[in-house]
């Protein structure tokens, strides 16, 4: 390998993933040692194109025409349902080792570190199952609407999927976040990457029927109705209590569509409830029944789980709104920055109370903040992408983001949150995340005081 420093211009600035492990080991010390560590495990696919000799003449990737420029490519419809590039295989939803003992009552985290914009590809949408998932025959799926007593509705009804899909539909972008997202970090730093700290978060365009339209078809007693109970058709038959106020606003949807296609089985195919701004557990999957009632239900996931333990020993019950929150995804934990110089800090902000009004970013651990640019669209109870130009000088940096929503609520620090709610809540941790960019380029999950 030539000495990079003696080459003209930037011609020898070859991507490290094209070098073999041996070449990297033998490389002159023009490169930082940490890069070697980061790139040593580049995929075999990337290594296949390796070992092109660098020269002062130019980049061999330009000078030597690649096979794809010289031969016939693949035909149409080779894949009836297209897949991501083979070079993208690292971005998968993943379990956090040791978090649960059974994969049927578990969670997989979305790889936020690699996503662009605000929409989560459906195949990377986080999963949370309480008793395993199913791929249900939609022709046999039914939705029942009933009342907690016979006077609550003029008549209880049953709908097929055919019928629901004949009704007028709406399509809306909303985030869904598990109430336990970032729960592992309540007491202290626990996991290395944004996938595990914040990956129980996804955002999709959902298509479906407004629940209120269907309840009105049933002749709901709008004066007596105070709650609805949503119930799933799977083994757990998940149940959650939803306030009638939210239903009456037209926000709650009986959704069958997600990002232009039907829901994925892992996300509730063929029907799920969409409850904007509310924690994911209320978005009941495989939705089979809605009961309109006058009293709350205190279901298992309202009386045993998804309750927030406060310092006084009381549990908050029916705490459902996902409050204002944000996280930087580039750079984020477990990454290694390529070099000093320019980066676009980028991240996600969201609030269960409405739109994001602003996001501030700090690179000095919260001492000084700069307003980030919000990328459009900025939608109600939806992920918002923010970005801030940053030139890294190679010195340690503490990167943070702080969101403010349209109600004026500002995302708190760990300390501000813990002062009120203690350290043992598990749920609803919306505090500011800090990433330490070390001189080596490695990004670490830290908490600052």
């Amino acid at each position, binding site marked *: 390998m030539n000495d990079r420093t003696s080459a003209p211009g930037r011609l020898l600035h070859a991507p490290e*993933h094209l070098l073999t492990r041996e070449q990297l080991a033998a490389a002159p010390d023009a490169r930082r040692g940490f890069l070697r*560590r980061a*790139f*040593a*495990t580049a*995929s075999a696919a990337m290594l296949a194109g390796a070992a092109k000799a660098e020269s002062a003449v130019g980049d061999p990737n330009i000078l030597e025409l690649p096979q794809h420029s010289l031969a016939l490519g693949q035909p149409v419809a080779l894949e009836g349902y297209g897949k991501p590039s083979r*070079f993208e295989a690292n971005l998968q939803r993943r379990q956090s*080792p040791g978090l649960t*003992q059974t994969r049927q009552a578990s969670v997989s985290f979305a790889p936020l*570190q690699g996503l662009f914009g605000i929409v989560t590809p459906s195949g990377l949408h986080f999963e949370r199952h309480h*008793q395993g998932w199913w791929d249900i025959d939609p022709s046999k799926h039914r939705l*029942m609407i*009933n009342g907690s*007593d016979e006077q609550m509705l003029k*008549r*209880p009804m049953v*709908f097929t999927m055919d019928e629901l899909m*004949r009704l007028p539909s709406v399509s809306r972008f909303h985030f869904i976040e598990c109430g336990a997202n970032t729960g592992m970090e309540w007491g202290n730093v626990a*996991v*290395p990457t944004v996938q595990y700290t914040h990956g129980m978060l996804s955002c999709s365009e959902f298509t479906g029927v407004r629940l209120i*339209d269907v309840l009105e*078809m049933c*002749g709901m007693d709008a004066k007596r109705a*105070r709650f609805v109970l949503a119930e799933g058709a799977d083994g757990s*038959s998940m*149940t959650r209590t939803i*306030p009638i106020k939210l239903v009456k606003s037209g926000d709650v949807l009986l959704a069958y569509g997600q990002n232009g296609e039907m829901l994925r089985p892992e996300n509730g195919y063929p029907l799920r409830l969409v409850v904007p701004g509310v924690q994911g557990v209320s978005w009941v999957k495989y939705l089979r029944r809605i*009961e309109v009632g006058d009293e709350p239900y*205190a279901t*298992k996931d309202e*009386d*045993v789980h998804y309750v927030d333990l406060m310092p*006084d*020993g009381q*549990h*908050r*019950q029916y*705490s459902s*709104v996902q409050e204002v929150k944000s996280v930087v995804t*580039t750079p984020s*934990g*477990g*990454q290694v920055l*390529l070099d000093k110089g320019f980066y676009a800090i980028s991240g996600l902000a969201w609030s269960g109370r409405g739109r994001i009004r602003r996001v*501030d970013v700090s690179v000095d*651990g*919260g*001492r*000084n903040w700069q307003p980030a640019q919000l990328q459009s669209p900025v939608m109600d109870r939806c992920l918002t992408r923010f970005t801030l130009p940053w030139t890294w000088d190679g010195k340690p940096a*503490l990167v943070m983001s702080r969101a403010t929503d349209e109600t004026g*609520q*500002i995302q*708190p*620090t760990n300390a*501000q949150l813990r002062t009120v709610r203690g350290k043992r809540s598990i749920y609803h941790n919306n505090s500011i995340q800090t990433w330490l960019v070390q001189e080596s380029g490695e990004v*670490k999950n*830290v*908490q*600052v*005081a």
Partner: protein
Amino acid sequence: MFKSPKRALVIALVCALGANAADKFPGIGRTATPAELKAWDIDVRPDFKGLPKGRGTVAQGETLWEAKCAGCHGSFGESNEVFSPLVGGTTQDDIKTGHVARLLDPSFPGRTTLMKVSHISTLWDYINRAMPWTAPKSLKPDEVYAVTAYLLSLADVLPADGELSDENIADVQKRLPNRNGKTWAHSMWPGTEFKGTVKPDVQGSNCMKDCGASPRVASLLPDYARDASGNLAQQQRLIGPQRGLDTVPKNKPAVATAPATKPVAELLQQNACYACHQIDTKLVGPAFKDVAVKYAGQADYLAGKIRKGGNGVWGSIPMPEQPALPDAELKAIAAWLAAGAKP
């Protein structure tokens, strides 16, 4: 498909509703039958609305528990092998107050179901709809009463000879250890039904410049925790502003390879012997073959000459000393020469 009398009933009902929402979408949906409602309307509320009549004793529950529940939850609901423990952490005093005192103790490990649950209806409803784990909804109502009774007996809510039924369940509720342990005084319910607070309880700061004291890293993820989630290099995109950190435990440095097992040709190569010597031909120094003939069987002598170097034996160009050559390699090369310098 529906038999015509039912269809007629649907039409009649739809007509009876008059000009309201039902008319907006003709042909969509139908009235649920009583049998359908009974099959699916299984929820039980805290006020026991929806609770079927029935009864089960602690003793009956224990038998069922051992057969259907203990595998995951342990014989006494104490196991954490598969799920969080159900039983433990509650006291007789908690049964009196309705507040589990251990919830105030940050050092108490974990929270069991019976430390948290505030309604027997919650237990009954959940066991009925979702248990056993691999055969949900297979228990009959009396069996659900029995299993619930056994579970409650493990926390002394019911005596060992006790029974739970639709008749006494409201009284047993009054002994649940954490029955008073919930609060609705917060702002995180997206409705007005619970009369919680309006203002959020936590608010961040909008300071932009010179905020607070200089930040200090209070805690940093230790390497063992960083490395416990698989190889992060394989969880990041292979192109873009950054790569993932390689967190696979590195192999320990290879134990120094016994040089005798390493081909001498490789030792000669790596120690630059070939710079001056060849096997058969004189180059700068003598051919290895010639050395081998002259000093056949004299490995120790050869080792000393290689180490210290010298001149005069094969000409005036000196052989440099080789102080960095490892002993084992020195011996291997000397032995090879003494044995004939066979390629």
